[in-house]
């Protein structure tokens, strides 16, 4: 899923300063699963914003709504009638949400209420870890099912570097050295020799480096 973090309340308050009628807009997709932008978080954020407004004796028209997804125009369309009645919409979907909403309703100020952080998974309730950098050319099967591109701080394809100590990355004792894990895993699988190959340079054209990406499926297009 796409994992995000709430923006600091102070930052959101600054965004909506002077905007009387505000909609906090959630998404039932990834951000619901990672507990940052679903219906419940919409309620919490909207309530906090109302408290802040009340505290200053300001109008408290902070409304709540959660769409099925914010990355599909058909769901954004559900806002068609209401959108322009708001002075601001705070989207707490991933970075796609505020862009789709802003594109559809150009007259309304749209703000991002969360910071989109990474593509990852839950290690346990309340803990997520980055697992994919969407490089556009998946190679994890060559590395024991572990991604050196997303999980090595230097994206080394021929690691581990000299900074690997006690299974941890040189950047922080909080970060696993994925190359240590790769070597261990491949050894367990009896495939260590495969790692002796000198991996050639990666073609980054399928990654963000090749420019913004777009995908067209002729079989699905209407």
């Amino acid at each position: 899923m796409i994992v995000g973090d709430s923006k600091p309340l102070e930052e959101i308050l600054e965004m909506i300063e002077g905007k009387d009628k505000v909609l906090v807009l959630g998404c039932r997709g990834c951000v619901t699963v990672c507990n940052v932008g679903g219906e419940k978080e919409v309620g919490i954020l909207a309530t906090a914003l109302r408290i802040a407004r009340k505290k200053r004796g300001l109008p408290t028209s902070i409304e709540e709504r959660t769409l099925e997804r914010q990355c599909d125009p058909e769901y954004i369309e559900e806002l068609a009638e209401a959108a322009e009645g708001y002075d601001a919409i705070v989207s707490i979907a991933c970075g796609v949400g505020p862009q789709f909403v802003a594109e559809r309703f150009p007259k309304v100020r749209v703000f991002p209420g969360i910071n989109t952080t990474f593509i990852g998974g839950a290690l346990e309730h309340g803990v997520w870890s980055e697992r994919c950098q969407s490089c556009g050319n998946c190679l994890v099967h060559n590395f024991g099912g572990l991604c050196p591109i997303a999980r090595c701080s230097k994206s080394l394809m021929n690691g581990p570097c000299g900074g690997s100590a006690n299974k941890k990355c040189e950047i922080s004792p909080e970060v696993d050295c994925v190359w240590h894990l790769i070597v261990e895993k491949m050894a367990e699988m009896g495939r260590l020799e495969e790692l002796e190959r000198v991996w050639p340079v990666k073609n980054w054209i399928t990654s963000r480096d090749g420019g913004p990406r777009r995908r067209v499926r002729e079989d699905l297009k209407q």
Partner: protein
Amino acid sequence: MKAGSNLEKVLAAGHFAVTGELGPPRGNNAEEVRHKAHYLKGIVDSVNITDNQTAVVRMASWAACKILIDEGLEPNYQMVCRDRNRIALMSDILGATALGIKNVLCLSGDHQRFGDHPEGKNVYDLDSVQLISIFKKMRDEGKFLNDKELDGAPGIFIGAAANPFADPFTWRAVRMGKKIAAGADFIQTQCIYNLPKFREFMKMAVDRGLHEKCAILAGITPLKSVGMAKYMAKFVPGMDVPEELVKRLQGVDKKAQGDEGIKIAIEMIQEIRETIPGVAGVHVMAIEWEHRAKEIVEGAGLLPRPVVD
């Protein structure tokens, strides 16, 4: 000869090579480079010029290399993959060799989160192994990575680093082997303090025949004080400073700790040279202590340096 550098010639003639290291200043103080260089002249066969080491901004490595050439020393141009993509790395090696630089050391580079601009974006288009292979291709085939012909191929003696003390230990010699397979002509190791472990590493390397394909230089950094030893042990990732070395330094008067550190370095060089098979030389990294490099090299009986034509 691949590059015809002094380092390459010394090694080819079978001499026990000695390389040094010089960190460029955090400014454009060319005089500082010349000042440090004169301590190393005639003491080492070539001098590594670090490339923004520990991700702290310093004078460009190639520029400091050029200053050394002008002073009559031979530089080893260190290049890290952190700050440049393939375009810049290939371009820089062309420029560097055009200025007379003949040795290059290919590194991944310390992550910028250590450095003085931790908020920067890194590159890591390539890793050090891939960088070695590209430079080899440019030199041997006269071609860029994309197979297009070069207008003038760089004659370079290609170096790489190995850290015998990083984890996982048993993979370390294998990874060094990958660098050699990719085209490394010489290897310089991380600072050695744990000799038994280095011995074990070299045994794995020799068992794989790596010492026959490539010159392996053992890294030596004199410990200036107990504080430095403790700092290295605790805060430098992948550094192994055994407790007994710290104790040995603690056993002497504070003012004499530096001398003791130099003595330890000399003993290590001698022991490595005499008892560890497969080592072709030493890389003496007297960091911010260039003026004492001579004592170490001389003490180890490695002066005068051979002159090879």
